[in-house]
């Protein structure tokens, strides 16, 4: 080993904090979130492109006023869903704060609240989907609005985009539940704060994506 002098192994260093000075898992998660950003960008862009075309088609026929597929999207329900998801980000922050101060009962309460709010969001979305289905907006390249059929990809792009967001929320809930049980079982474990921080990071990201979808798809 002539080329290398002896440095002592990781001893004394905080675990998993490496040459960049951050926790490895956190670094990896940030990079993953970067990747996911492009994933949702592609889905949302596809939706916006096809929606613009549908609008142009309808406008050309003078039907935009009463046939705009956006009329399907009830703003009330989704506003509630958005509020739920935003509230869950808040409870997530509180849960993390409680781990840092090692107040485990408080932590369990806030994490459970996050899980409940997240599940409520998913259920709300399932409700929204079935409702839209009955109204005539389906996973098909046309929709039926008040008895009239319009050729449009609105339903297709809408369901795929929001469906994949819903899938991400669902996976987030599974992850939250896993962390909940892990922390309950190994309460004194020194790695708990980081476990919670990571799932929180992911949770806020999924939340932000919803804010983007809500603004670009429902509001504007």
């Amino acid at each position, binding site marked *: *080993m*002539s*080329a*290398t*002098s*002896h*440095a*002592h*192994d*990781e001893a004394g260093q905080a*675990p*998993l904090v*490496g*040459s*960049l000075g*951050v926790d*490895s*898992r956190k*670094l*990896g998660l940030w*990079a*993953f979130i*970067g*990747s*996911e950003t*492009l*994933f949702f*960008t*592609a*889905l949302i862009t*596809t939706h916006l*492109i*096809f929606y613009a*075309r549908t609008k142009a088609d309808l406008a050309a026929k003078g039907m935009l006023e009463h046939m705009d597929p956006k009329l399907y999207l009830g703003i009330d329900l989704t506003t509630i869903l958005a509020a739920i998801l935003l509230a869950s980000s808040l409870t997530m922050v509180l849960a993390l704060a409680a781990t840092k101060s090692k107040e485990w009962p408080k932590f369990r309460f806030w994490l459970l609240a996050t899980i409940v709010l997240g599940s409520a969001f998913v259920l709300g979305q399932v409700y929204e989907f079935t409702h839209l289905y009955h109204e005539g907006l389906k*996973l*098909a*390249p*046309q929709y039926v609005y008040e008895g009239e059929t319009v*050729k*449009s*990809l609105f339903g*297709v*792009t809408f369901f*795929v985009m929001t469906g*994949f967001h819903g899938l991400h929320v669902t996976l987030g809930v599974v992850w939250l539940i*896993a962390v909940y049980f*892990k922390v309950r079982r*190994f309460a004194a*474990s*020194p*790695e708990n704060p*980081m476990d919670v921080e990571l799932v929180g990071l992911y949770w806020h990201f999924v939340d932000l994506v919803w804010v983007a979808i809500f603004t670009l798809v429902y509001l504007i």
Partner: protein
Amino acid sequence: MAIAEQKLTSVSPATASSGSFPWRTWLATVDHKKIGIIYIVSAFVFFLLGGIEAMLMRVQLGTPNNTFLSADVYNQLFTMHATTMIFLMVMPMNVGIGNYVVPLMIGARDMAFPRLNALSIWLFLGGGLLLYLSFLTGGAPNGGWFAYAPLTQVQYSPTAGMDYWILGLGLTGIASIAGALNFIVTVLNMRAPGMSINRMPLFVWMNLVVSFIIIFAFPTFTVGSIQLLFDRQFGAAFFNPAQGGDAVLWQHLFWFFGHPEVYILILPVMGMISEILPVFSRKPIFGYSFVAFSGVGIGFLGFIVWAHHMFGVGMGPMANAFFAAASMVIAIPTGVKIFNWIATMWAGDVRLTTAMLYAIGFISMFIIGGISGITLASPPIDLQQTDTYYVVAHLHYVLFGGSILGLFAGAFYWFPKMTGRLLNERIGKIQFWLMMISFNITFFPMHIVGTEGMPRRIYTYEAGMGWDMWNLIETIGTFLLAFSVLIFIYNVLSSLRNGEVASNDPWDAATLEWTMPSPPPSYNFLHIPVVNSRRPLWDAKYPHAAGDDHHGPSSAPSQVRYEYTDEETEGAKDIHMPSLTFSPMIFSGGLTVASLGFIYINKDILGLPTRVAALGFILIGIVMVSIAIRGWILDSRKDSPYLSQHH
């Protein structure tokens, strides 16, 4: 090998518990070196499969009006050939060598996430096997490697082949993203003390750049293929113009990934070349920062040139002009690298080993491919050449002449580190010349028939178009090429048995992987090294020439053989390496099984029984994944660095 294994068992708690069944230490491994070797071996097997497909196609095209293959089989073969070579050969071969070498080069004991690393290899294999399963279940994918819409809609591509393609590549895509995240964190966060960013070997640099390209390029491909899957399975019509969809949207989504993909294929190989040339020129790389930053530049520019694959679509003069200009600009950082490599050899003390020959072969063939690339980047020329054999010539000069020759250079260079034995140099050189000559016999005439108008992706052609002779020559070249690959296989097998035993540092190299035994023990470094320059090993061996900016070694190599002494390996008992685990394999097995089920979830093949079976597969997959997640959490607790501190 045996000696190292011996030591490994005596020190590593992971291996010690593994009992006498040797397969277990491979199937449940989380060691980056073993995972690297599994990658390399399986990529090589896929290389042979892709090669067989190529030979079948060349037999068909050897003579006009040939009936050896039907049009349908021919379509399957060119689709699978390209898909295999790109996704199952060059990509995983790069990842495999990177997996083995990168942690050693930066002075780390393993990748940042060893279990995630194991997940990547098994997901890659699951995806590859799923793709190949399609041959047995009614037809392989047949829409070309870029799967142009609307050819890929169910009505034009009714077998399940394209579904296999989507899900198979979906699995390898997850593997690639997981692998890229792992490389990013490893390179940024696992460097030994003193291994600052601007001291990292260029191979590490290029792996870092490529990992960023992967995580930003793959998502659009994933989205596109998910949408295509919805088209095929649920009648969504994203890419079906007849129902209001948009075929050109697919091209944008695909090529926004597809062009960066070609850099994913070439940049790691450029990194290898940048390691090999200095060692065999006995000079430091010329313009280290230029080589590193031109790689970064290529990474960025690679995201704004995608539509040069779409000039034929008719995007209009503004778009054409922009993408043409951007494509020409990307030739600049590429050219910078080529000049740096040439300047590295210039006035160097060049040793023409086989690895060096391949590296020089890489440079010369890549220049030809780069020049034809620049011609294609000009829209008026491209409109003449697109979809002809000229494009086939271009892509083979960059991918075979570039990536694959470079990978052979890497193989000859690192084989001794990985196996403890050197490949036979004499056979290697014979193979090199045979490969160079037959490569050019096979692919150079494609420039000619291409400019004469021979379209690509036709299964046969009329006699008397002026293409007959060249096609026959190309086919003969292919057989010579295949023969040279056989020679390589012979070389590997015979060298593994009785090749010259490699010292730790058989090439008198400069980077950290050559400081340890060949092959290295499971924990790599007995002590994490402290690095003071870009060429730590050269500086130690040639102190008079040390320092970042000084000239490299000039004296003859001293072939010292380091071995860890018994005392030292005794000390290694305290090194804790992550335990063996089957969870990653079960996880990817579950995803593969579920994907198989998903292919048939909405197919009218045997009616209800098929759907029930498909649903069953999906459920089994979910159960397997859940079991794996539980095992994974428990394993990660067992090995947690947080917890081991408190023992």
